[in-house]
């Protein structure tokens, strides 16, 4: 399986002998020994540190269908280099647009996204409830709210319920996570350790979904739950909703409760909290390991990795918009 490469060291990436060459540069500006990355094994690149590159490298990456995701100094997701679409399908695009413009069809898909996300959130809460973390208040409240999902008749109403579910869900984090307090969800900048982790891992989850969409015929800007806006791939946001509880949140609980990431991995300033480089590396490493873990897929009857699950979700979506098979959001069963 192709791998993601995460670049933390500043350095220069270039095309050399039809493959990728990375020359790390240290703080004094002295070049290290070049490292060759086998281009045929690269799924995508994540640039966290300062990356020097020229257009011939990007032309090459484009040809090899490798995308590059960029993050700034504060580990916010800033954008992606996406190679030219290679899986084009006018039929899917038209069908996707029709599903967006048709009020009822769009609402149905949006409701399914929310119900999928809610189901996965409940799974997390119940898992910890069985492990002596009292989350019964949140479970009851979310179950109550989730019954209203199918009664909504507009996207705005649905978003309102979704928001309430998420607030309730986040309020259980303080119970689930030992030794850390989250309080309320805050972004830009995150106010404490838990919020910093959520922001960072969610942006990784978003790029994961974006990448999966790129490798299917779906168009990443036409979304159903989120408003398709300008300059962003909102369909990836829709998909990320479903996978955030399974991939991001579970990882956060593990990282903190097993003390893999500790207080020392964060840089706490006046009113913001960010991950230090050491912390980021640990998070990315666990994230990457998590993605390659496999589960036995019930209907496919074979082992699939978490990473592949996201792509399967895209295929289901394509089938739905082409009216071949109704879309059922992925729900964790374990």
């Amino acid at each position, binding site marked *: 399986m192709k*791998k993601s*490469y995460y*670049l933390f060291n500043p350095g220069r990436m270039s095309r050399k002998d*039809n*493959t990728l060459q990375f020359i790390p540069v240290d703080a004094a500006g002295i070049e290290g020994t070049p490292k060759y990355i*086998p281009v045929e*094994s690269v799924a995508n690149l994540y640039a966290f540190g300062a990356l020097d590159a020229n257009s011939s490298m990007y032309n090459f990456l484009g040809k090899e269908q490798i995308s590059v995701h960029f993050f700034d100094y504060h580990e916010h997701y800033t954008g992606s280099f996406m190679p030219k679409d290679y899986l084009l399908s006018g039929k899917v695009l038209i069908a996707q647009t029709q599903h967006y413009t048709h009020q009822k069809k769009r609402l149905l898909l949006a409701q399914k996204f929310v119900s999928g996300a809610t189901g996965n959130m409940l799974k997390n809460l119940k898992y910890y409830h069985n492990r002596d973390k009292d989350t019964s208040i949140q479970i009851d409240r979310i179950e109550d709210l989730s019954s209203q999902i199918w009664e909504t008749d507009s996207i705005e109403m649905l978003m309102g319920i979704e928001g309430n579910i998420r607030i309730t869900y986040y309020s259980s984090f303080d119970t689930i996570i030992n030794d850390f307090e989250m309080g309320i969800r805050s972004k830009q900048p995150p106010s404490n350790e838990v919020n910093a982790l959520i922001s960072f891992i969610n942006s990784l989850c978003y790029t994961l979904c974006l990448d999966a969409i790129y490798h299917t015929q779906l168009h990443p800007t036409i979304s159903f739950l989120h408003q398709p806006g300008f300059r962003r791939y909102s369909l990836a946001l829709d998909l990320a909703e479903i996978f955030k509880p399974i991939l991001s949140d579970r990882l956060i609980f593990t990282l903190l409760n097993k003390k893999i990431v500790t207080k020392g991995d964060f840089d706490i300033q006046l009113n913001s909290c960010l991950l230090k480089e050491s912390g980021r590396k640990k998070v990315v*490493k666990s994230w990457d390991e998590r993605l390659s873990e496999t589960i036995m897929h019930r209907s496919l009857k074979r082992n699939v990795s978490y990473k592949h699950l996201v792509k399967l979700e895209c295929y289901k979506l394509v089938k739905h918009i082409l009216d071949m098979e109704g879309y059922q959001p992925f729900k964790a069963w374990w």
Partner: protein
Amino acid sequence: MYIILVYDIEQQRVGKMLKLCRRYLNWIQNSVFEGEITEVKLKELLATAKDIMNVHKDSIIIFSSRDEKWLEKQVIGIERNELDNIL
């Protein structure tokens, strides 16, 4: 599958082989490569390799296993190139 590829190739052709293998596998030592590769990609690699090599003089040996976990690796002395996808 996970493979270890070693080659023994005459000097005037060795550079080409090195460059070819770098595209598909991780270099770990002079004329030794290892890495995860699909069967199709390996066929592709070998087909190109055959064009480069002189089959009467050069050789390539491939050790393969189903997965990296079935491979125990010990490094004695310095590790020339650590394999990591977090750089």
